């Protein structure tokens, strides 16, 4: 009977929605959106939707995509998720060159900085590594198999990133832990040496991102279910600064909706030359902008950018040195889901350097649909529809799903405690009868 409980713990989260994701090509060539099993790419240079071809011989995605990422060089892209597939794509032109089958569902994916390896994390908290690209002759070796290089003991890895200097791989989990592991020269033999643990979050860690002083030291940022954005010296595992979004709760919410559990950090994204952190917060229609001063090692509040009431972004992306923020809202795996609900909403928010001065008078806002680069073409490709009335319906459904899922994540611990107590009692009763 204990076994059943364990399996439950491992698959809890299965019935949760998968948020729509967005990723931006590091040199601005393209932008990708994933919702459910659907991957949508728009070519920003050509101004057209990309039709994705698959040379890998593997199956297409058949269940929710949980993670997408571009390689640092922009030539590679990966998508992975609940169908236990990790698909590696070349981006110029777009085609899938490798489909890796994982034993378990995949929760995170990242390329090593040199683009040689793709790492993915499965639902058991194990990180696997596999050669990413083709060999010199353009072949993908068919018999190569991913190897496990380390793991978080029985927790789900929510985010995985390589440091820009290539030295570390950082993994964050649902148990408030961030592990920073040295990425060795021969990583296929395992990544066993831990550089640090970054401990400070008091709830699940939902996202991490590396940043660096141009040409200088790297730092790590994280956001979590505890409403905090944290800045770390990941070399020593030192917490440098914490910004609690509840400090500016007045700016965030209408007076009647200041429920703490709704202020979990959903996603963070560096932008404007790494000087700003855009923060998506679970109940905020819009974004919070923080200034990130790596010299003073400080995070400070800049402003809240509002979007329309029903728009709460599920994912953010930006090229780090460009002040253009891509946001997306959408979800799959919702109850009563139909194909039409795979619709997503994309909004682009331009950030000017002057936003750094937190000038109250100046108003950043999402671009109107008519101002979006490539206009309707882009929106149709990435959103799946332009129909405004349908959109509203979708946003409302997504909003509800977001709330339920976040609530589940936060009360997970209490539930299992209750259950355990129940089981314990059951056991004692039996003993007495015997």
């Amino acid at each position, binding site marked *: 009977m204990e076994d059943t409980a364990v399996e439950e713990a491992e698959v809890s989260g299965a019935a949760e929605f998968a948020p729509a994701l967005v990723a931006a090509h590091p040199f601005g060539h393209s932008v990708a959106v994933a919702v459910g099993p659907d991957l949508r790419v728009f070519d920003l240079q050509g101004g057209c939707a990309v039709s994705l071809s698959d040379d890998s011989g593997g199956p297409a995605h058949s269940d929710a995509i949980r993670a997408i990422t571009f390689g640092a060089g922009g030539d590679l892209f990966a998508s992975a998720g609940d169908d236990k597939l990790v698909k590696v794509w070349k981006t110029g032109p777009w085609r899938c060159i490798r489909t890796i089958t994982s034993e378990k569902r995949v929760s995170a994916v990242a390329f090593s900085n040199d683009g040689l390896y793709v790492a993915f994390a499965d639902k058991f908290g194990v990180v696997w590594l596999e050669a990413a690209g083709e060999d010199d002759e353009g072949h993908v070796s068919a018999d190569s198999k991913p190897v496990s290089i380390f793991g978080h003991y029985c927790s789900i890895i929510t985010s995985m990133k390589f440091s820009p200097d290539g030295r570390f791989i950082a993994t964050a989990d649902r148990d408030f832990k961030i592990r920073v592991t040295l990425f060795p020269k021969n990583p296929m033999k395992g990544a*066993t040496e831990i550089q640090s643990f970054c*401990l400070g979050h008091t709830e699940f860690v939902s996202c991490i991102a590396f940043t660096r002083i141009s040409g200088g030291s790297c730092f790590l940022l994280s956001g979590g279910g505890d409403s905090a954005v944290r800045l770390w010296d990941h070399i020593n595992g030192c917490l440098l600064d914490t910004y609690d979004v509840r400090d500016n709760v007045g700016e965030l919410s209408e007076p009647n909706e200041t429920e703490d559990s709704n202020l979990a950090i959903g996603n963070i994204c560096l932008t404007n030359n790494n000087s700003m952190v855009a923060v998506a917060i679970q109940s905020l229609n819009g974004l919070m902008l923080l200034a990130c001063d790596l010299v003073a090692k400080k995070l400070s509040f800049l402003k809240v950018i509002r979007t329309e009431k029903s728009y709460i972004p599920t994912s953010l992306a930006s090229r780090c040195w460009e002040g253009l923020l891509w946001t997306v809202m959408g979800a799959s795996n919702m109850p009563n889901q139909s194909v039409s609900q795979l619709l997503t909403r994309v909004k682009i928010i331009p950030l000017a350097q002057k936003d750094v001065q937190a000038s109250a008078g100046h108003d950043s806002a999402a671009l109107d649909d008519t101002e979006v680069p490539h206009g309707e073409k882009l929106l149709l490709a990435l959103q799946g529809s332009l129909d405004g009335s349908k959109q509203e319906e979708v946003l409302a459904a997504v909003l509800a799903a977001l709330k339920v899922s976040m609530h589940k994540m936060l009360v997970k611990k209490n539930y299992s405690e209750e259950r355990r107590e129940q089981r314990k009692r059951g*056991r004692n009763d039996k003993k007495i009868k015997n």
Partner: protein
Amino acid sequence: MTRTSGANGGGGQSGKLPRKRFYRARAHSNPLSDSHFPIPISPDDFDLSQHYPRYYPADKGERGDGEEVEAPLIRFADVGCGFGGLLVGLSPLFPDKLMIGMELRDKVTEYVKERVLALRASNPGQYDNISVVRTNSMKYIPNYFRKAQLSKMFFLFPDPHFKEKNHRRRVISMQLLDEYAFVMGVGGIIYTITDVEELGVWMRSCLEKHPLFEAVPEEEIEVDPVVKLLSTATEEGQKVARNGGQTFQAIFRRISLQEE
């Protein structure tokens, strides 16, 4: 429930301490369940004054005499300490080293706490260096110890988890060895012993495969005063000895990584 092993269940029939039966607990805990006991957010939040009041007086902050003696850190950890026999045996051997037992079962932890307090009361000035904490060592080791803090870790007669799909619940695994290596200083020693041959082979092979550990040579093992305690000091060890059971030990040193 099926019987998993004779090696389990320090669940209280040794009878050496009469009060033990009051702390009778079920034999197995499931290390994967979520915790409902307090976990320090990081080693900085681990309140040592509760555990080692002699070394960490509660009013330490207000002492204005200027003489700040650096309090010692915990150096030994007994993981899955059971009823605490090893700690009691080690305490007088290393009177200036702080040691902690980590135990998942609530009642067993309470028993060890009482045992230590009783020993301190009847032997003033002794046993101030041992304590116990209720925790899941498989999930929270980094919450208690800083990098390179420990010089010895003990895994005595751990639960065997025979079924293949439960192997990842074993306290020694390639994954968990990364964390143990992190909290251990180079040169630190990890001691394991079991009466279950299959588990003994497993623990040894994990340690052999792990690049941050190497086997301690036989000559060194022979002169290490701690080794004798592995099979004699704990309740489980004594039970195995009484039944004339065979034991399998693996003793490895934390080394620094050689990248070729």
